[in-house]
């Protein structure tokens, strides 16, 4: 669905993404992991069409730059790390903005957009905030509101695989809401779509991602199921920090334990 071929990105004279080639199929949640400055967000923004790159990125076999904004909005949503705040806008209005493309290109009535938006407030625990101004929300509530907006944007009765790009979608969330949000992303991916996220919480990434992509210094350092690629050796090298990998006490997923610098605190 998303074909990346020989993509390189320079910032000034620094090469931040170095010749990355990969092919991502729909039906999975993909987590980009790596240390700060590895190029995760840069790569995500390249997929979003925000920054110039060398090489080719094809979405559904068609060059990314050949898509018109209005077409793209119907099959691709982007959740940014630092979500913008428009003062005086309510949560419901924010989520309804996701339906803009449908109102414009398909003449979707306002009431239908409103219904779709309201439907997405519930699973993200936002119903009580529907008419709250977004500048009064906490960071986590705002992040959930933006996720709801992206989910509302991608709701369609047309067949076809859709793409959700999310830069650290759970960074501002508490544990309960992290799992609530990732559950939604998982369900969306399982329904035959592609979710591409940047994640810093390795255990969340390994619990929810079908595919983990390891990035270091702008290069691809591994890609596959977390069981296969997230070994103690690989992760220790990726983050240049000693790590241990063990089984989840209840589930059959690997979990990561980083060694505290200078040893653990005395209990």
């Amino acid at each position, binding site marked *: 669905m998303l074909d990346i071929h020989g993509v390189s990105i320079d910032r000034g004279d620094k090469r931040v993404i170095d010749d990355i080639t990969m092919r991502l199929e729909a039906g999975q949640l993909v987590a980009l992991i790596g240390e700060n400055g590895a190029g995760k967000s840069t790569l995500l923004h390249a997929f*979003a*069409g*925000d920054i110039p790159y060398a090489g080719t990125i094809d979405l559904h076999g068609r060059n990314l730059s050949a898509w*018109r*904004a*209005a077409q*793209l*909005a*119907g099959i*691709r*949503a*982007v959740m*940014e790390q630092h979500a*913008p705040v*428009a*003062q*005086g*806008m*309510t949560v419901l*209005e*924010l989520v309804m*903005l*996701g339906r*803009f*493309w449908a*109102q*414009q*290109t398909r003449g979707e009535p306002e009431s239908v957009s409103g219904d779709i938006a309201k439907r997405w407030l519930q699973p993200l*625990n936002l119903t*009580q*905030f*529907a*008419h*709250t*101004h977004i500048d*009064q929300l*906490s960071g986590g509530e705002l992040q959930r509101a933006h996720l709801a907006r992206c989910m509302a*944007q991608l709701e369609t009765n047309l067949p076809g695989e859709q793409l959700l790009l999310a830069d650290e979608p759970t960074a501002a969330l*508490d544990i*309960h*809401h992290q799992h609530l949000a990732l559950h939604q992303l998982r369900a969306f991916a399982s329904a035959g779509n592609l979710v591409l996220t940047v994640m810093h919480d390795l255990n969340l990434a390994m619990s929810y991602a079908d595919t983990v992509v390891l990035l270091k210094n702008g290069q691809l350092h591994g890609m596959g199921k977390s069981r296969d690629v997230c070994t103690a050796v690989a992760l220790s090298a990726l983050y240049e920090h000693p790590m241990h990998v063990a089984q989840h006490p209840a589930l059959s997923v690997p979990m990561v334990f980083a060694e505290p610098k200078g040893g653990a605190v005395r209990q």
Partner: protein
Amino acid sequence: MPISMTYNPPQANTQQRRYRYALLMTLGLLVLALVLAVSSGPVMSDWRLLLVSWWPGELNGIEPIHRAVVAEIRLPRLVLGLAVGMVLAQAGTTMQTLCRNPLADPGLIGISAGAALCALFVIAFGSQLGLVGDIWVTLGAFVGALGATFLVYRLAGGLRGMNIATLILAGVALNALAGALIGLFSFYADDEALRLMSFWQMGSLAGVTWDNLPFGLLAMGIASVAFWWRRHAINALLLGERQAGYLGISVVSFKRELVIWVALGVGGAVALTGMIGFIGLVIPHIARLLVGASIIRVMPLSMLLGASVLVLADWLARMLVAPAELPIGIITALLGAPFFIVLLLKFKRRLHA
């Protein structure tokens, strides 16, 4: 269930209710403005003048001259006031969203001045260039508004990194330059240069006839319909350009399109009335205070409010020193400038950044 916060958000949709109240109140204001504008003036003040255009029979004490005053003076002036107030408020709403800047007003940042300058240029020198007629004045104002907009963007560092302080300073510079040139051109244009200067710099709806109206009204009408038609897209710009792009807007061409509508609307207004300040600044702010940020609500309310306030301001301009007339810009500045000062205080911290 997650632990609930101390803040209790409103359960009912108070926003929607406030919007309805605000629309109703503004409609009331508009009706008041219409009644005052038609029924009162230096020639005759009588509420029955409202009916005079439709009343088939005789009305006691109302002479044909009074009918003529209403039909040929007050009505075209009313139509002009409604159109100008509406389009200036819409242009202000749009510029403020486009620049992501609460102080971006077509008057303050010099767009109106550019329009006035070029319109006056056509009036002063048009006959030597073969450009005679209202259509050229309107076109001149449009070109001037467009030129001023691009110049201000350049000076303020492009749309992306627009800085409030630079924007205001660019406006000050443009207004000063245009003011000086308007003074100069006025002396070329007419023996009554001082009167002409005051018309262009402070605006007036006086002396308009049905014959003057068509081109300016057409320009304002097109711009107004375009703003209305694009209100959902302007609303999406509230999230910033990048997000607007993700939501399905071709941002670069959309920004260009909006600049053209602003120039057309402001140009059409200025060509007929000169520079009327502060409407584009104050009206959208009041609308936002009443109904929140969403352009879907701010746009219609701004249109109604802008039209009502401008007609009321024009009525004050006619009545305060009757039978003489004040330039309407004096009234709008008296109302708007203190508002501007309050806004400056409010955004002081952002200006220093």
